[in-house]
């Protein structure tokens, strides 16, 4: 038996008596013994389980969209800004001076957030951003989940990080969308750099970078100066149908199901974010599809 086998057996505690006696006379064993006893000092620190549980309860209230006014408790929670559909509570900088700030939107909502340097982020529905106010001076970095439009003040490097990639800019306007299998960056002004699945790519105005199921494409778009969703309209240019339907679900409180439809086909068009019936027509008629509404559930299927 070689050294490795001894150690493996020792780890699994399966050494026979004789093997143990033999092994215990080796240096390898003494080294392991010493390490093992030293390891006992690496026990994780204690934490206050009660306080933790209270914080979780506090976060849970987000679900019920109740805003608790226990400021001291809130202060102890990193990133616990709780904003429901009615943005009664516009954030107060003084209360959240030291932790990471989080802003989010629900279904069908958009909201504007002013960053410490006066850059403006507009969040589309079902999205969130987080950033640290403390470190803002050193690092202009925003974490994003979902979709947002950025209008960035000139200055040092500005970064938007999502699960799929990082967008780096100097001062410009751009839109980042990171949803399920879909990642898209559109530059509206200036120049941005995108580092995602492929090597870093630079985009200038009206250029888009897109990743669908890890397939990367770049395109020049016929677009306005700002994303249409800022004006309550969702626009798509050659976007997989599935992503269009997902956007519908994020703008209206509905579940969209499909029947016998190719959801990978590409859709170009737009739908209003304020009128469900028109929106449904806009996404079905071009493909010769139809839909059935059943309460909050919508079934999209073939027209005939």
């Amino acid at each position, binding site marked *: 038996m070689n050294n490795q086998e001894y150690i493996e057996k020792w780890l699994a505690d399966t050494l026979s008596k004789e093997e143990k006696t033999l092994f215990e006379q080796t240096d390898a064993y003494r*080294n392991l013994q010493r390490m093992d006893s030293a390891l006992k000092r690496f026990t994780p620190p204690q934490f206050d389980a009660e306080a933790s549980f209270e914080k979780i309860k506090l976060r849970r209230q987000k679900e019920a969209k109740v805003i608790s006014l226990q400021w001291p408790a809130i202060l102890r929670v990193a990133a616990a800004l709780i904003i429901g559909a009615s943005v009664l509570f516009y954030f107060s900088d003084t209360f959240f001076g030291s932790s990471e700030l989080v802003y989010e939107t629900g279904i069908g909502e958009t909201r504007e957030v002013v960053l410490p340097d006066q850059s403006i982020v507009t969040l589309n529905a079902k999205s969130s951003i987080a950033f640290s106010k403390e470190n803002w001076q050193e690092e202009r970095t925003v974490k994003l989940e979902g979709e947002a439009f950025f209008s960035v003040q000139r200055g040092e490097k500005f970064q938007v990080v999502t699960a799929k990639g990082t967008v780096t800019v100097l001062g410009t306007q751009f839109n980042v969308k990171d949803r399920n299998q879909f990642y898209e960056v559109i530059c509206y002004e200036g120049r941005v750099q995108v580092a995602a699945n492929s090597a870093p790519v630079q985009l200038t105005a009206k250029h888009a970078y897109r990743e669908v199921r890890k397939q990367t494409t770049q395109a020049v778009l016929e677009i306005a100066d700002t994303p249409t969703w800022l004006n309550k309209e969702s626009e798509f240019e050659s976007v997989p149908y599935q992503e269009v339907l997902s956007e519908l679900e994020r703008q209206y409180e509905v579940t969209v199901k499909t029947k016998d439809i190719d959801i990978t086909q590409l859709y170009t068009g737009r739908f209003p974010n304020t009128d469900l019936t028109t929106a449904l027509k806009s996404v079905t008629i071009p493909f010769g599809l139809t839909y059935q509404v059943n309460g909050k559930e919508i079934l999209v299927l073939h027209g005939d």
Partner: protein
Amino acid sequence: MEGADQHICEERVFRKIFNECSRDLFNFLYYKYGAENHPEDLMQEAFTRLWDNCKKVSPEKARSFLFTVANNQMLNELAKKKTVLNYQKEDQVSQTNESPHYILEENEYMNRLQKAIEELTEEQRVAFLLNRVEGKKHREIAELLGISQKAVEKRIYKAVESLQQKIGNIST
């Protein structure tokens, strides 16, 4: 999932799961990310996620749900800090009888060990510390991490190998 009693959305049930799992989850996150990456916050976040999904997750599945969430949590976090794992300093009292040379050597050993542990891959470190510090069985670790027992053993062995290489031999 019979009756509302069994529902995680019930505070009583949720509380029970918290009591049973929070320590393990915290330790797991601590081993994985170290003290500087707020394991307590991450633990709370995992429980919040469990709450968000309380209707979909059965109480029996809660534990593995929590670990799955915790395991994936930091992947899209930025500004991840270096993993730091602190060890408890020895009491002054127990040191008084030791020679200065011994103390020096011991401290040096601890520092080397600490550094070597921090340099392990996340995967190796978690499996290794769950086993050697927590005393968890290979099978339990496999369950927690959702991997095979063989894979657990491999990670632990790799960790031992790497540590032994880095901390070197006992000076005799």
